[in-house]
């Protein structure tokens, strides 16, 4: 069985309007090139932004030999991955392989897990994320996150979305309202909730709650957005809207998305990394990874032979 059996849909069929075919598929060879030897090997703390990208693509997040231990169990093993700016990076792999763990390392949400130990490095631009001097609160404002399980606050819809902006000190009601409306429109929820912004968020359906959480993350206007299976609880229509949203956000944000849906990874991402049992088996331009994977395990996974 060939890896090519995976169906990579024509981007125009997914996103009819502003997107042209080559925008989605330009990931191949010309945009990101990480063959640069300085990039994956030695610590390049001093110039992490300048490598790994050809043309105008800059690396925003880079990990080197990142390992995570939950107690005695090692959940991540020496992950070295780069996340390019204004691109969508997809993480795929079977359940329990460490995708969420990896994502949580990028905004230090793992800090709160009891008994966690993290080794290796994570850089955001040229800032060492795990440096003791790093302001975690500031970091999390820049690196937003949508969780695997939707977790709206037991507050009104409005207050959920306004939570981040309020943390940043925005008090002006009309300004908040503008942010809330804008964020809800982007997460494709506005039309369903505009009449009842003061209702409890817990009254929303599961899929609506997930879109609310996306809106909540967007409202803080992060530079980087980490999305852990944002569409797992959504129906096909909402999923399509979220995918459209990801296309749009791509121009302004840098996105890392975890997904179990290979079609989705193929549709939305520029680059894909395949994780398996705590290791990163391979990563590369999405098209390449799905059509000509370098590793047998990757091929087996994307053709549905396991996982």
């Amino acid at each position, binding site marked *: 069985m060939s890896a090519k059996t995976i169906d990579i849909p024509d981007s125009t069929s997914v996103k009819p309007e502003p997107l042209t075919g080559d925008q989605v598929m330009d990931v191949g060879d010309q945009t990101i090139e990480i063959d640069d030897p300085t990039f994956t090997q030695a610590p390049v703390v001093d110039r992490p932004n300048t490598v790994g990208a050809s043309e105008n693509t800059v690396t925003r997040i880079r990990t080197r030999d990142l390992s995570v231990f939950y107690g005695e169990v090692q959940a991540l093993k020496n992950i070295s991955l780069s996340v390019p700016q204004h691109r969508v990076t997809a993480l795929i792999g079977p359940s329990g392989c460490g995708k969420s763990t990896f994502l949580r390392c990028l*905004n230090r*949400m793992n800090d*709160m897990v009891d008994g966690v130990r993290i080794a290796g490095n994570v850089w955001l631009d040229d800032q060492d994320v795990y440096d003791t001097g790093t302001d975690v*609160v*500031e970091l*999390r*404002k820049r690196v*937003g*996150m949508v*969780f695997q*399980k939707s*977790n*709206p*606050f*037991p*507050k009104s819809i409005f207050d959920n979305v306004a*939570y*981040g902006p309020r*943390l*940043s000190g925005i008090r002006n009601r009309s300004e908040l309202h503008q942010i809330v409306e804008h964020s809800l429109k982007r997460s494709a929820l506005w039309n369903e909730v505009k009449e009842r912004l003061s209702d409890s968020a*817990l009254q929303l359906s599961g899929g609506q709650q997930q879109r609310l*959480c996306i809106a*909540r*993350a967007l409202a*803080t206007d992060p530079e980087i957005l980490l999305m852990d299976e944002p569409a797992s609880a959504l129906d096909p229509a909402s999923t399509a809207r979220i995918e459209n949203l990801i296309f749009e956000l791509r121009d302004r944000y840098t996105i890392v998305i975890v997904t179990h849906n290979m079609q989705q990874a193929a549709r939305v991402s520029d680059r894909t990394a395949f994780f398996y049992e705590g290791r990163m088996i391979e990563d590369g331009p999405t098209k390449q990874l799905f059509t000509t994977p370098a590793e047998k395990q990757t091929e087996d996974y994307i053709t549905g032979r396991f996982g």
Partner: protein
Amino acid sequence: MSSVSTFVKPVSPQHQATGVQGRRKTFEKLIQAFLFVCAGISVATTVCIVVVLLVESVQFFFEVSIVEFLTGTKWTPLLKPQHFGILPLLCGTMLVAVGSAVVSIPVGLGTAIYLSEYAPPRLREVIKPVVEVLAGIPSVVYGYFAVVTISPMIRTVFPSAGPFNAASACIVVGIMTLPMIISLSEDALRAVPRSLRQGAYALGATKYDVTTQVVVPAAMSGIVASFLLAISRAVGETMAVTLAAGATPKATLNPLESIQTMTAYIIQISQGDTPAGTLEHRTIFAVGLTLFIVTLMINLLAQWFLSQVREKYE
């Protein structure tokens, strides 16, 4: 009662087995009957108490008008001229309830938040048992602690205070009700899903933000329920209050004065030589009924708040 009907439900013919099976069935029936009687005892007791309270109170209200009882500002049933206005006793009870809440709510909630959100696990394991010991101290011990320790301290700060004063009762009842607030509030705080805290942290919230804006509001109904149950306990508290606050029915809000609560009054009459069946003696049933109604209302309100907690995360 529905439990009665299930109990006497006729056994259908095919279930009337013989031998071992039959004996097992009989055993099951006996167990069920025994458990039903157990459950019935508490129901029967409640009903009896309410009936006695009502019967005696009705007799009391044949002689004293309800209006006088509820609006009178003098309570002198044992002195001539007799006055049967419950307000001084109600006022005393409320003073102790509110005063103790002033002590117990901030300290209790603060402790609960500390234990649930801030305390390192090891420290938590030390503090929790200490709080439980607090709950196990007999109330009479609290009472003389108030008289011999708290009251003299109050009198050094406020020389005008009497040896028996409401403030010492408030403080000691506040301490007594702390464990209730701490453990119930902490349960409510801990019941807030981790994922909510993480959601807030991921938006750049500090620990203080998460605690005050997400965790405490999410646990609010449980916290309020713990306050109400503590207040209800303070209203019903007898021993410590009788010892600490004195026996002077007075419609005052000054915590430095000696007062009398409803419970303390009931103790006074029950132990005195007032003959049963007299009007003077019946006062305790009217007071008891009032006390019962007040605590019942508070408890119902607390139950309602607790039901809100259960609804929230289902």
